[in-house]
Protein backbone atom coordinates (compact mmCIF):
# COMPACT_ATOMS: atom_id res chain seq x y z
CA UNK A 1 0.00 0.00 0.00
CA UNK A 2 1.28 3.52 -0.72
CA UNK A 3 3.06 5.24 2.16
CA UNK A 4 4.95 8.19 0.70
CA UNK A 5 4.32 9.75 -2.71
CA UNK A 6 6.70 9.54 -5.59
CA UNK A 7 9.05 12.48 -5.85
CA UNK A 8 12.48 13.21 -7.35
CA UNK A 9 15.42 12.00 -5.33
CA UNK A 10 17.08 15.36 -5.99
CA UNK A 11 14.41 17.05 -3.91
CA UNK A 12 15.65 15.42 -0.72
CA UNK A 13 18.44 16.77 1.41
CA UNK A 14 21.67 14.77 1.21
CA UNK A 15 21.61 11.90 3.67
CA UNK A 16 17.84 11.71 3.94
CA UNK A 17 17.74 8.64 1.71
CA UNK A 18 20.11 6.00 3.16
CA UNK A 19 23.38 5.81 1.28
CA UNK A 20 23.01 2.06 1.05
CA UNK A 21 19.93 2.47 -1.13
CA UNK A 22 22.00 4.36 -3.68
CA UNK A 23 24.85 1.89 -3.52
CA UNK A 24 22.61 -1.02 -4.48
CA UNK A 25 22.19 0.66 -7.87
CA UNK A 26 25.49 2.46 -8.29
CA UNK A 27 27.45 -0.76 -7.81
CA UNK A 28 25.25 -2.98 -9.96
CA UNK A 29 26.98 -3.57 -13.29
CA UNK A 30 24.07 -5.66 -14.56
CA UNK A 31 21.72 -2.71 -14.97
CA UNK A 32 21.62 0.10 -17.50
CA UNK A 33 23.84 3.12 -17.07
CA UNK A 34 20.89 5.38 -16.37
CA UNK A 35 19.69 3.00 -13.68
CA UNK A 36 23.03 3.32 -11.91
CA UNK A 37 22.35 7.00 -11.26
CA UNK A 38 19.67 7.00 -8.56
CA UNK A 39 20.19 10.70 -8.03
CA UNK A 40 18.28 11.13 -11.30
CA UNK A 41 15.44 8.84 -10.27
CA UNK A 42 12.14 9.36 -8.50
CA UNK A 43 11.46 7.42 -5.33
CA UNK A 44 8.28 6.28 -3.64
CA UNK A 45 7.72 4.41 -0.39
CA UNK A 46 5.17 1.73 0.36
CA UNK A 47 4.14 -0.56 3.19
CA UNK A 48 3.82 -4.31 2.83
CA UNK A 49 0.98 -4.24 5.35
CA UNK A 50 -1.22 -1.43 6.73
CA UNK A 51 -0.01 -2.15 10.27
CA UNK A 52 3.58 -1.33 9.43
CA UNK A 53 4.64 1.78 11.34
CA UNK A 54 7.21 2.87 8.77
CA UNK A 55 7.56 2.18 5.07
CA UNK A 56 9.33 -1.09 4.36
CA UNK A 57 9.33 -0.90 0.57
CA UNK A 58 11.19 1.72 -1.43
CA UNK A 59 10.94 1.89 -5.19
CA UNK A 60 13.33 3.87 -7.36
CA UNK A 61 11.86 4.89 -10.71
CA UNK A 62 14.55 5.42 -13.32
CA UNK A 63 14.11 7.90 -16.14
CA UNK A 64 14.00 4.92 -18.53
CA UNK A 65 10.88 3.62 -16.84
CA UNK A 66 12.45 0.69 -15.02
CA UNK A 67 11.89 0.20 -11.31
CA UNK A 68 14.27 -0.90 -8.57
CA UNK A 69 12.66 -2.23 -5.44
CA UNK A 70 14.11 -2.49 -1.94
CA UNK A 71 12.25 -4.66 0.55
CA UNK A 72 13.32 -3.92 4.12
CA UNK A 73 12.95 -7.06 6.23
CA UNK A 74 15.45 -6.32 8.97
CA UNK A 75 15.66 -4.04 11.95
CA UNK A 76 17.95 -1.25 13.02
CA UNK A 77 18.15 0.69 9.80
CA UNK A 78 16.74 4.04 8.78
CA UNK A 79 13.33 4.12 7.09
CA UNK A 80 12.77 7.60 5.69
CA UNK A 81 9.26 8.94 5.55
CA UNK A 82 8.03 12.04 3.73
CA UNK A 83 4.94 13.95 2.78
CA UNK A 84 4.24 16.27 -0.10
CA UNK A 85 2.53 19.55 0.77
Amino acid at each position, binding site marked *: *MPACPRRPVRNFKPGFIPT*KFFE*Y*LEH*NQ*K*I*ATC*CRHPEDHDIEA*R*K*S*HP*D*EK*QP*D*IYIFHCT*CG*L*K*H*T*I*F*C*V*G*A*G*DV*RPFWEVR
Partner: protein
Amino acid sequence: MATYNKFEDFSEQLCRGLHHLHAAGDLLRVYLSNAAPSASLDAVKADLAEIAGGNGYTALGEDIQNDLSETGGTTTLTAVDVVWTASGAGIASFRYVAQYNDTNASDALVNWWDYGASIAPAAGETFTVNYGASYATLV
Protein backbone atom coordinates in the same frame (compact mmCIF):
# COMPACT_ATOMS: atom_id res chain seq x y z
CA MET B 1 10.29 -3.61 8.91
CA ALA B 2 8.24 -6.25 7.28
CA THR B 3 6.81 -8.74 9.73
CA TYR B 4 8.99 -11.75 10.43
CA ASN B 5 6.88 -14.88 10.12
CA LYS B 6 8.23 -18.03 11.73
CA PHE B 7 7.55 -21.52 10.46
CA GLU B 8 6.35 -23.26 13.60
CA ASP B 9 8.58 -26.28 13.14
CA PHE B 10 11.63 -24.04 13.22
CA SER B 11 11.55 -23.43 16.98
CA GLU B 12 11.41 -27.15 17.72
CA GLN B 13 14.18 -27.96 15.30
CA LEU B 14 16.29 -25.15 16.68
CA CYS B 15 16.04 -26.65 20.15
CA ARG B 16 16.81 -30.09 18.79
CA GLY B 17 20.09 -28.76 17.47
CA LEU B 18 19.14 -28.91 13.80
CA HIS B 19 20.02 -25.31 13.05
CA HIS B 20 23.45 -23.75 13.48
CA LEU B 21 22.93 -20.16 12.49
CA HIS B 22 26.46 -18.83 13.01
CA ALA B 23 28.74 -18.19 10.05
CA ALA B 24 30.76 -21.36 10.56
CA GLY B 25 27.60 -23.39 11.03
CA ASP B 26 24.88 -23.92 8.47
CA LEU B 27 24.27 -22.10 5.20
CA LEU B 28 20.94 -20.33 4.98
CA ARG B 29 19.41 -19.32 1.68
CA VAL B 30 16.70 -16.87 0.79
CA TYR B 31 14.32 -17.74 -2.04
CA LEU B 32 11.19 -16.37 -3.67
CA SER B 33 7.74 -17.90 -3.72
CA ASN B 34 4.33 -16.99 -5.01
CA ALA B 35 2.58 -19.63 -2.90
CA ALA B 36 1.06 -18.62 0.41
CA PRO B 37 3.13 -20.10 3.24
CA SER B 38 1.58 -22.02 6.12
CA ALA B 39 3.22 -21.48 9.48
CA SER B 40 1.88 -24.75 10.82
CA LEU B 41 1.99 -27.03 7.78
CA ASP B 42 5.19 -26.01 6.02
CA ALA B 43 8.37 -27.41 7.52
CA VAL B 44 10.80 -28.01 4.67
CA LYS B 45 11.50 -26.17 1.44
CA ALA B 46 9.61 -28.72 -0.63
CA ASP B 47 6.47 -27.64 1.19
CA LEU B 48 6.64 -24.10 -0.18
CA ALA B 49 6.99 -23.84 -3.95
CA GLU B 50 9.80 -21.75 -5.34
CA ILE B 51 9.38 -19.62 -8.45
CA ALA B 52 10.97 -20.85 -11.65
CA GLY B 53 14.64 -20.15 -12.06
CA GLY B 54 15.96 -18.03 -14.91
CA ASN B 55 16.21 -14.42 -16.06
CA GLY B 56 18.39 -13.45 -13.13
CA TYR B 57 16.84 -15.68 -10.51
CA THR B 58 18.79 -18.81 -9.67
CA ALA B 59 16.79 -21.75 -8.41
CA LEU B 60 17.47 -22.60 -4.75
CA GLY B 61 17.89 -18.92 -3.94
CA GLU B 62 20.87 -17.03 -2.60
CA ASP B 63 23.28 -17.53 0.29
CA ILE B 64 22.49 -14.87 2.90
CA GLN B 65 25.88 -15.26 4.61
CA ASN B 66 24.15 -15.73 7.92
CA ASP B 67 25.87 -15.00 11.20
CA LEU B 68 24.97 -14.12 14.78
CA SER B 69 26.22 -12.32 17.86
CA GLU B 70 25.18 -12.35 21.50
CA THR B 71 25.04 -9.52 24.01
CA GLY B 72 23.44 -9.64 27.42
CA GLY B 73 21.50 -12.74 26.62
CA THR B 74 20.07 -11.46 23.38
CA THR B 75 21.22 -13.18 20.22
CA THR B 76 21.08 -11.16 17.03
CA LEU B 77 20.86 -12.85 13.65
CA THR B 78 22.44 -11.06 10.73
CA ALA B 79 22.69 -11.50 6.98
CA VAL B 80 24.10 -9.78 3.92
CA ASP B 81 21.64 -8.03 1.62
CA VAL B 82 20.62 -9.87 -1.53
CA VAL B 83 19.97 -8.22 -4.91
CA TRP B 84 18.27 -9.96 -7.82
CA THR B 85 18.62 -8.35 -11.24
CA ALA B 86 16.22 -9.49 -13.94
CA SER B 87 18.02 -10.07 -17.24
CA GLY B 88 16.86 -11.14 -20.68
CA ALA B 89 13.28 -11.24 -19.49
CA GLY B 90 11.41 -10.75 -16.27
CA ILE B 91 11.68 -12.76 -13.08
CA ALA B 92 8.59 -14.85 -12.38
CA SER B 93 5.92 -13.34 -10.14
CA PHE B 94 6.43 -13.75 -6.43
CA ARG B 95 5.05 -12.34 -3.20
CA TYR B 96 6.91 -14.14 -0.43
CA VAL B 97 10.56 -14.04 0.59
CA ALA B 98 11.43 -17.21 2.49
CA GLN B 99 14.52 -18.61 4.15
CA TYR B 100 15.65 -22.18 4.67
CA ASN B 101 18.61 -24.10 5.98
CA ASP B 102 20.44 -25.44 2.95
CA THR B 103 22.91 -27.43 5.02
CA ASN B 104 20.10 -29.43 6.55
CA ALA B 105 19.37 -32.57 4.53
CA SER B 106 15.66 -31.75 4.40
CA ASP B 107 16.16 -28.05 3.70
CA ALA B 108 14.29 -27.07 6.85
CA LEU B 109 12.36 -23.82 6.56
CA VAL B 110 13.17 -20.93 8.89
CA ASN B 111 10.87 -17.98 8.22
CA TRP B 112 9.24 -15.79 5.59
CA TRP B 113 8.23 -12.23 4.87
CA ASP B 114 5.17 -11.13 2.92
CA TYR B 115 5.75 -8.39 0.35
CA GLY B 116 2.04 -7.67 0.42
CA ALA B 117 1.35 -8.22 -3.26
CA SER B 118 2.85 -10.12 -6.13
CA ILE B 119 5.68 -8.48 -7.99
CA ALA B 120 7.47 -9.50 -11.19
CA PRO B 121 10.62 -7.48 -11.90
CA ALA B 122 11.00 -6.83 -15.62
CA ALA B 123 14.27 -7.18 -17.50
CA GLY B 124 16.73 -4.64 -16.17
CA GLU B 125 14.85 -4.16 -12.91
CA THR B 126 16.10 -5.18 -9.48
CA PHE B 127 14.65 -6.53 -6.28
CA THR B 128 16.70 -6.13 -3.13
CA VAL B 129 16.22 -7.77 0.25
CA ASN B 130 17.59 -5.35 2.84
CA TYR B 131 18.36 -7.14 6.09
CA GLY B 132 19.21 -4.01 8.01
CA ALA B 133 21.34 -4.44 11.13
CA SER B 134 19.64 -7.75 11.91
CA TYR B 135 16.74 -9.82 10.67
CA ALA B 136 15.77 -11.48 13.95
CA THR B 137 16.65 -11.65 17.62
CA LEU B 138 16.35 -14.46 20.14
CA VAL B 139 15.82 -13.42 23.76
